[in-house]
């Protein structure tokens, strides 16, 4: 990056800039450039949103005619027969940019409200042009600033506190969601107790790699639904589960829901221990007639019964409240750890059941502290609950009172509990819930509907960035949050590199009491 002119500004308005560049100027979508206004001393920060061809020739069809001639030469095997003389003088490129703002001569960043002097030079940015961003990048690093395809030596991240105001990770398969989540988990671990992360892993893809992190010994706790080495057994007690968890995890018809309420009333229980008894009933017809007075249709009862049997037979479900991991998970999170819940082997609904249970536990604990023990709440770390395929619990038709996830989205922030919703299909998320998410990590998204929903919900204007999002390569992302003044393009660190370059935790960390670092900070 030097002061070499990349182009000259010639048009558009306060929010957009158009500049001309030479025909061989290699401009990339998403590239960050600076318009140098010599008259005012301001440096305007631009993001390239489109690049097109321009020509000095004004005759209609000129370019098509030239292309036709060259194509004919190619087809005859005579490439080069007709050169385009003086191409550098006759053709050029036109780049359309979003004006992100400007740096005053004093180095203060301001949103765009004025027009740079016409024909100002456009140059590549210098490190000092990003200095204003340094204070906005927070304490959870995720990668390096990216300008087009160039990785800039400038660390990009988010403030850990913003985990409470919810994070969305949006990408199609293979674009680097898992790597990003691991990098995020690494950041949480390295903050030594300042933040907690509950990471529900349906595919068992994080356990091995997170365990390799130098801080894992002190800051990672893994619970697994299967017998796996170096993990604690994931046991969920029916005594801690609620009907709402069932309603969140499974699709219930209205009669089936009525049946659930009827059963709850019949067993007169606040928890789900009655599932054990109910699951053991052999003669459902008689039970229906005698115990429920025929208030539930038999086939409806059969569905609930089948599900009850499946739940109580799950290896991770226990009747004994003493074996439940709920309390241990809460303690780990209070301790500011990354808690990995490896639910590989469970079905999707059971995974949601576990996630719903743990999320409700966290929300109840943190909200109780907020309401009843403000000083304790003050000391509690900010906790994020990360859930894959988040559309399962945050879609429009799942937004019911019983579902804990929309509650976290709406109320969690004040209790310091946030969601980290990972999805390939943001279009399936409830718009209103999505608007509660203050941080978006947008990786490559091919579907226009997915991009559109993010445009309307993002805390930064990403309306012009459709082509850029469409063309993001694996590991490339846009970070849009309230801290940075614009959606920051980033190249996410490779988790393996993070592990390699990460220093081990100081020895005294092991002995330090829980949350000491949180108190200090």
């Amino acid at each position: 990056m030097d002061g070499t002119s990349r182009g000259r500004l010639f048009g558009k308005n306060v929010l957009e800039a158009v500049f001309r560049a030479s025909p061989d100027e290699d401009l990339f979508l998403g590239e960050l450039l600076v318009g140098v206004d010599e008259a005012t001393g301001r440096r305007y920060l631009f993001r390239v949103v489109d690049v097109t061809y321009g020509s000095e020739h004004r005759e209609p069809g000129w370019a098509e005619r030239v292309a036709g001639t060259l194509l004919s030469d190619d087809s005859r095997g005579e490439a080069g027969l007709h050169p385009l003389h003086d191409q550098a003088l006759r053709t050029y490129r036109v780049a359309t940019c979003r004006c992100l703002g400007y740096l005053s001569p004093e180095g203060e960043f301001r949103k765009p409200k004025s027009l740079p002097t016409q024909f100002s030079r456009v140059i590549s940015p210098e490190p000092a042009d990003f200095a204003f961003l340094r204070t906005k990048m927070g304490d959870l690093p995720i990668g390096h600033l990216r300008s087009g395809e160039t990785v800039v030596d400038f660390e990009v991240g988010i403030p850990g506190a913003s985990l409470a105001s919810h994070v969305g990770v949006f990408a199609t398969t293979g674009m680097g969601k898992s790597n990003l989540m691991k990098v995020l988990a690494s950041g949480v671990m390295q903050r030594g107790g300042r933040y907690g992360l509950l990471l529900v892993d349906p595919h068992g893809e994080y356990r091995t790699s997170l365990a390799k992190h130098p801080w894992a010994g002190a800051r990672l706790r893994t619970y697994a639904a299967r017998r796996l080495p170096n993990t604690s057994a994931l046991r969920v007690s029916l005594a801690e589960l609620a009907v709402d968890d069932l309603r969140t995890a499974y699709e219930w018809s209205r009669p089936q829901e009525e049946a659930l309420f009827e059963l709850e009333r019949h067993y007169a229980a606040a928890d789900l221990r009655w599932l054990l008894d109910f699951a053991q009933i052999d003669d459902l017809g008689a039970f229906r007639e005698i115990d429920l007075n025929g208030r539930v249709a038999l086939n409806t009862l059969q569905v609930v019964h089948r599900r009850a049997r499946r739940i109580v037979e799950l290896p991770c479900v226990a009747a004994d409240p003493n074996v439940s991991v709920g309390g241990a998970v809460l303690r780990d999170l209070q301790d500011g750890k990354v808690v990995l819940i490896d639910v590989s082997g469970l079905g999707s609904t059971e995974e949601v059941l576990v996630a719903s249970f743990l999320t409700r536990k966290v929300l109840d604990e943190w909200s109780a502290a907020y309401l009843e023990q403000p000083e304790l709440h003050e000391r509690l770390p900010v906790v994020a609950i990360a859930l894959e395929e988040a559309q399962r619990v945050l879609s429009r038709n799942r937004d019911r009172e019983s579902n804990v996830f929309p509650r976290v989205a709406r109320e969690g922030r004040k209790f310091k509990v946030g969601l980290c919703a990972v999805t390939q299909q943001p279009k399936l998320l409830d718009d209103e819930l999505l608007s509660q998410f203050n941080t978006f990590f947008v990786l490559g998204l091919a579907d226009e509907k997915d991009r559109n929903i993010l445009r309307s919900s993002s805390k930064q204007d990403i309306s012009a960035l459709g082509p850029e999002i469409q063309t993001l390569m694996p590991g490339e992302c846009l970070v849009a949050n309230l801290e940075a003044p614009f959606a920051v393009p980033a190249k996410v660190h490779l988790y393996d590199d993070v592990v390699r370059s990460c220093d081990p935790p100081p020895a005294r960390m092991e002995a330090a009491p829980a949350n000491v670092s949180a108190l200090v900070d």
Partner: protein
Amino acid sequence: MGVEPSLQHAAARLAELLTGRVAALSDPSGRDLVFEATIEIRPLDRRPAPADVWAVDGGQCVVADARCVQLLVTRAARVRYAAGERVLEDEGELKAHLLGVGEDRASLVALGLALDPNTSVDVNLLRDRWEWDAVERAIEEAQPGALVLVDGDLVPDWRIPSTFMGELLGRAAERNVLVAGVTKHSSLARGGAPLVGHLELEAAVQFGARAMWWATVARTRSDFGAGGLQVVVARLDPDARFAFRVDLPASADPSEALGALSAVSDDAAFPGYPYPLSVADQLAACPPWLRQELWLELDELFHRAGVPLEVRERAFTDRHKLMERA
């Protein structure tokens, strides 16, 4: 609406002319040409491009038109290519001229030619004069072996003495510089039909659709000076949409000269037309914005000279346009 009888008659006659077998060659807008008895079309081979290539073209526009008196500007642009690289771009100095109400005389004197004081003056003469001046300068500055291209034929405006052209070609020969004029739209005719189009069709039949070819069609009268000119029609690129009239000094070997000319007529945007000439053409053009800028400058000068606004408006308002809008 039926076709008017006069149009029917004209169309029938035109059809006869375009398709007729009358073989006489002519140039209705030209002079001094002696046509070949028979036209032989020959294949053309592309030669290496000359190391030094110049192109000259003239342009003009009317800046202010009071009908009885006009202010117009001319300029002659030059462009030079050395070893394929553009090394000179000269738009040419804008020269203002007044025509009408006796002002033509002053413009005539300013031409610096030994012309009869009663010679009529118009924009063609003014533009041509300075275009040839630019050609003269190009010949002087060119390297031996250079090619100097001129937009249009090499037969100057009828008011410019042929001795002037003879001297110019003589100087070019002395300096071993080839001067060639290329006419985009020629008035050469065979019978009543455009000759170049006829030759294009004949050559395609004779040599194929992608052949390059040339044919001598005329020479200038012997009193032209410096041996006179030869007028050829040539297709300078296999993919040329058109053939063009090319004027060469009589002493030039047409296949050599046209082969060299062909080498600079390979641009992908318009195969078959010498690219340096299209650059000169763009440089010399006086686009509407230039006319507007000159008018504003003129208006400012009027203002300083104390010409009242009302007088300016009445003199130069385009009443045609006003009436069209009314």
